[in-house]
């Protein structure tokens, strides 16, 4: 799949933002006044910034409000509804914490649940697609949730929890890369099954429908980036988990060093999210004899 910058930024940043909101809703860290304002500001900047970035790839963003209507069937619509609900509830909770120094714990818990649910809805937009076997796996929502929670733990300076979550995340991410490499073959698709001509022999594309590209090949068939995928996976694993876990486990971490770890983690997150799209193969590529 084409790794569009707007979608990579959206899923990465909004995941971090909602992850931070999850911890803030639970009262971790227990802050008030200006310091609470700073935490909530970062969380909202990430979550709202990510959601805004997602509108950049729309053909007609002026109609985006209509996307709240189909929550009964569409994960994309559910994501919009839940994300806005989470932001509203957490907004009320944050305003009371910041300006009135009043913490209504159940309101925060509700906001936390909605925040994490928003991340789950995002993940299901991809995990529901049978057409992309690498996404259509149980590990997809688990990974999105782990990314949000471990990033949120880092941003809210819950370092013990972050250490544990980052270790789990790294292991699950590596396992899911390995499982993902088998997913297309396991789904049983090839050019013979796609065309239904397998009983006649081996099938190959003799002539494509058009000499140039089209929307489908640009959007669904992305081959170039996969060349370095192994190296990129190694760099991503080191940045998002291995080095942060080592630093958190071995050293006494102060405020500035947390920033370094967050920066490393976010770099790893962006690379892994880029790979999430670039490595995903859509079954329509079979008709073009390309993956």
């Amino acid at each position, binding site marked *: 799949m084409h790794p569009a910058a707007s979608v990579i930024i959206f899923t990465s940043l909004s995941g971090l933002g909602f992850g931070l909101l999850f911890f803030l809703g639970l009262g971790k860290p227990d802050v008030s006044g200006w310091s609470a304002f700073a935490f909530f500001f970062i969380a909202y900047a990430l979550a709202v910034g990510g959601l805004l970035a997602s509108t950049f790839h*729309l053909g007609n963003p002026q109609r985006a409000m209509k996307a709240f209507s189909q929550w009964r*069937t569409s994960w994309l619509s559910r994501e919009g509804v839940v994300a806005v609900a989470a932001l509203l509830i957490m907004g009320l909770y944050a305003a009371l914490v910041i300006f009135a120094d009043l913490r209504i714990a159940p309101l925060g818990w509700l906001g936390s649940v909605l925040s994490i649910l928003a991340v789950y809805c995002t993940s299901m937009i991809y995990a529901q*697609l049978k*057409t992309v076997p690498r996404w259509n796996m149980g590990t997809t929502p688990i990974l999105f949730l782990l990314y949000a929670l471990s990033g949120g733990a880092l941003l809210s300076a819950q370092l013990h929890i972050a250490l544990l979550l980052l270790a789990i995340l790294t292991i699950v991410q590596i396992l899911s890369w390995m499982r993902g490499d088998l997913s297309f073959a396991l789904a049983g698709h090839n050019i013979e099954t796609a065309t239904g001509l397998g009983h006649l022999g081996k099938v190959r594309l003799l002539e494509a429908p*058009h000499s140039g590209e*089209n929307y489908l090949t640009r959007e*669904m068939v992305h081959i170039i980036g996969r060349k370095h995928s192994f190296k990129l996976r190694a760099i991503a694993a080191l940045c998002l988990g291995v080095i942060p876990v080592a630093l958190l486990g071995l050293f006494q971490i102060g405020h500035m060093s947390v920033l370094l770890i967050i920066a490393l983690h976010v770099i790893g997150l962006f690379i892994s999210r880029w790979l999430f799209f670039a490595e995903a193969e859509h079954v*329509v590529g079979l008709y073009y004899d390309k993956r």
Partner: protein
Amino acid sequence: MTALPHTTAKKLGLVIDLDICVGCHACVINCKEWNTSNYGAPLSDMDAYGSNPVGTFLNRIHTYEVKSDDKIAQTVHFPKSCLHCEDAPCVTVCPTGASYKRVEDGIVLVNESDCIGCGLCAWACPYGARELDAAEGVMKKCTLCVDRIYNENLPEIDREPACVRTCPANARHFGDFADPDSNVSQMSAERGGMQLMPQQDTKPVNRYLPPRPKADIQTDGDIDILAPFLEPVAETPKGLLGWLDKALEAL
């Protein structure tokens, strides 16, 4: 609402005969012409006269070579457009309700004034039947020429999809699959009409008729059965050419 109807009164769709299609692309052109000048946003072309032209099409023809070890390779032209699936995944993923499947005839359509152009339906379609128009930013797909088939301003003979109407080889047929006696149901039953990618559980309505088995030509190792008829007529040249031939041989 983007929930799918439980059943539809009719199941309108196409039968595409892979044995007959000659790959002339006439259906592609007529589809583009009709759907550019009638219902909905036109099917735009980008950089049409430049070095990297791309455009929106609702119907595309792939050409495959099929080769088994013991037989001569054969060419199969493979038209592909929306299959108007009963369990259309493109409909349920739509966040705005722009995509829908009609209860009366099962046609899958896009309400372009509700489409935000997010592209998720195109991702959900295994067949590549949906293309986002680069000029309008809305999703385009085969409408089964809904503006032709019920159009009483057209002569009755023209009330079928543009691709079917134009096909010079009669490889495309239009009808109601809910009716077991319809032309398309019978044709599909006779010839073993197949669904594309049944593993995707989309239950496509359109059916593809597989190529008929080719006659086995006995060749005794010589692949060209016409060669014996093409042997030179004059075995040995006579006259001036005969003398030249001998003289040159002797050299």
